[in-house]
């Protein structure tokens, strides 16, 4: 068997095609990359085209052996585990070699790193269910986040059912993806650049009220910044209303200066593009 490095398009299906290819060609993978810049030139490498029928075959095989493993792979793919493709690849290899029994052993050396990463993903999604801050902009609720993991698929079910009659979007600055929801339809799509529109008077009013509430509710005799940081790491503060500077609490001057600012990025939040190819696997309906 040859040792080989693969380059793929970064999608979950693309990753499954790498698995397919390595089995079809009897190649042992030493690394899987989605970004050309990171492929070390010294090693033999190949680019794998994404073929949905190949991806489907791999997935069906895995589901047959263990539906639970298929779920682990989908979730594992969303994590920020460095070289996650290789960890998942090894998990598949072990599964096809030995069967699903080791999946019950939570400290298993192949399984544990993936489980740990998934716990971290769920932990981050749980925190963000609380920490996401929406602004109302022309009737649309919009938010931005900077998560380490790709949490949008995990946030989708929660926010879309909670605000079922609203139009909303959440932009993930880290992974350059946006979750769009309107008329009971949700979509996650890649989006390179995004900038939030400035707030109007009423939005600023709520921001001020919240900031004031936040500052008032602490008991000064119990001041404990370390405890606060433990529960709410500072990397989340950047997108939270209560920690923004004074500019965040100023309204745009008047609507005449700034015509047509009903929603950020024109109407992207209102008009949902046709079902684009699934860039992230769905874990929530």
């Amino acid at each position, binding site marked *: 068997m040859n040792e080989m490095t693969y380059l793929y398009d970064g999608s979950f299906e693309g990753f499954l095609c790498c698995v397919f290819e390595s089995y079809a060609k009897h190649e042992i993978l030493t690394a899987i990359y989605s970004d050309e810049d990171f492929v070390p030139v010294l090693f033999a490498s190949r680019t794998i085209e994404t073929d949905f029928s190949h991806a489907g075959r791999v997935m069906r095989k895995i589901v047959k052996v263990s539906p639970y493993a298929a779920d682990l792979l989908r979730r594992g793919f969303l994590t920020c585990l460095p070289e996650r493709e290789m960890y998942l690849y090894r998990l598949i290899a072990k599964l096809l070699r030995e069967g699903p*029994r*080791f999946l*019950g*052993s*939570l*400290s298993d050396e192949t399984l*544990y790193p993936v489980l*740990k990463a998934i716990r971290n993903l769920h932990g981050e999604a*749980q*925190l963000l*269910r*609380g*920490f*996401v*801050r*929406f*602004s*109302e902009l022309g009737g649309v*609720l919009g*938010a931005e986040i900077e998560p380490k993991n790709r949490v949008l698929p995990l946030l989708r079910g*929660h*926010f879309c*059912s*909670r*605000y*079922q*009659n*609203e139009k909303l979007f959440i932009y993930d600055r880290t992974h350059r993806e946006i979750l769009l929801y309107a008329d009971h339809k949700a979509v996650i799509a890649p989006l390179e650049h995004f900038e939030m529109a400035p707030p109007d008077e009423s939005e600023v009013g*709520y921001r*001020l*009220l*919240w900031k*004031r*509430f*936040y500052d*008032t*509710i*602490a*008991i*000064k*005799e*119990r*001041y*404990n*910044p*370390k*405890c*606060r940081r*433990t*529960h*709410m790491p500072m990397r989340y503060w950047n997108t*939270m*209303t*209560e920690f923004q500077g004074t500019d965040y609490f100023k309204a745009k001057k008047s609507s005449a200066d700034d015509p047509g600012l009903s929603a950020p990025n024109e109407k992207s939040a209102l008009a949902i593009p046709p079902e684009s190819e699934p860039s992230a696997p769905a874990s929530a309906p």
Partner: protein
Amino acid sequence: MELLDKLTILSDAAKYDAACTSSGSRRGFRQGYIGSTTSSVAGCCHTFSADGRCVSLLKVLMTNNCVYNCKYCVNRCSNDTRRAMFTPEELAELTIGFYRRNYIEGLFLSSGVVRTPDYTTELMIKSLRILRERYRFNGYIHAKTIPGTSPVLVEQLGLLADRLSVNIELPSESGLKLLAPDKTKAAILTPMRQIETRRTENTEELVKYRHAPKFAPAGQSTQMIVGATGDSDLHILRLTQGLYDQYKLKRVFYSAYVPVVENALLPSKDVKPPLLREHRLYQADWLLRFYGFRAEELLDEHNPDFNPLVDPKCSWALAHLDFFPVEVNSADYETLLRIPGIGVTSAKRILVSRRCARLKIEDLRKLGVVMKRAQYFLTACGKMAEGLRFSPDSLLRNLIAAERPGLPQPAAEQLTLFDTIQSA
């Protein structure tokens, strides 16, 4: 008065209430409504205030006007402070505005007593009605039941709220007489009993008619102030246990007394709030609710207060060394839970994993066991952690050191405690 001012006054006056969880009620979305409630044990924290406490709900008072004169309270009628009152419309609009922006999980509404308990409760009911009916709000609501409110109004409040609470505040009747002369034990326990009975009925109704209106589906809770009176930890913990057993309370909250007034009957204003004691009570409360401990196992007449140096579970373990070490490959769930450093999650993971393969010491950390603490109390395949040597003395020292960084009281005070214990 501006809304911003009102909010400032009425959240400032509400901040001493410890309860801020949105837990215990699982309700998905509802067609045509806004909002949902989550099912996780801790509820959902939307931020943490500078004192490190979870902020889940918009916690405010309807008004801080109060005709009562509880000596420990900033809102008592004899205190010279700015007063304000929300109109029901304002409060409902504010809640929805915050909820839509995901600032909060819902509303925690309490109030000073304006005119009478009934008058106050009617105002609260009116606000909640607007929220539930006009704004079709399906999120979490926690409402305070004011002692002395008539049963009809408690009923109405319970149909609008997810959780009701009646605060005991002072853990003994003598404390009440002395510090809250307008309140009696009976006035507190009557609504508590009513809520409990009504919830039992409601459970039966819901079995028969799926669409029967729900009465306080997230149950009831209460709060006790710690350190305003001389009551011991044993007394407080027994009372807690009684409330869980007899009144089916979902939560008991403890609030370290923050001296806000100079009064001969209360600790002076330079006394720091007893945060460590509050922390120990929460740890013990957790043991009662999830670990199968009983109050009598943790404290007794000879040791009526918690050891400030080690947590209640370690204390128990140190007093029962003959119970240990426990073999993790064969012990049942209840026994695993008795090991310091093993919690509900790690105990469950142990049960799952050991079905596939016998567990070794190195596996345990990966299952979430805190080995710093647990290693002294367990074996895996008959073996303890390699190279582990300890005497009863060093064991105690190590356990103290393992917990210290996470404790709420500053280091200096820890030292004083340490000194007093050693010299005693």
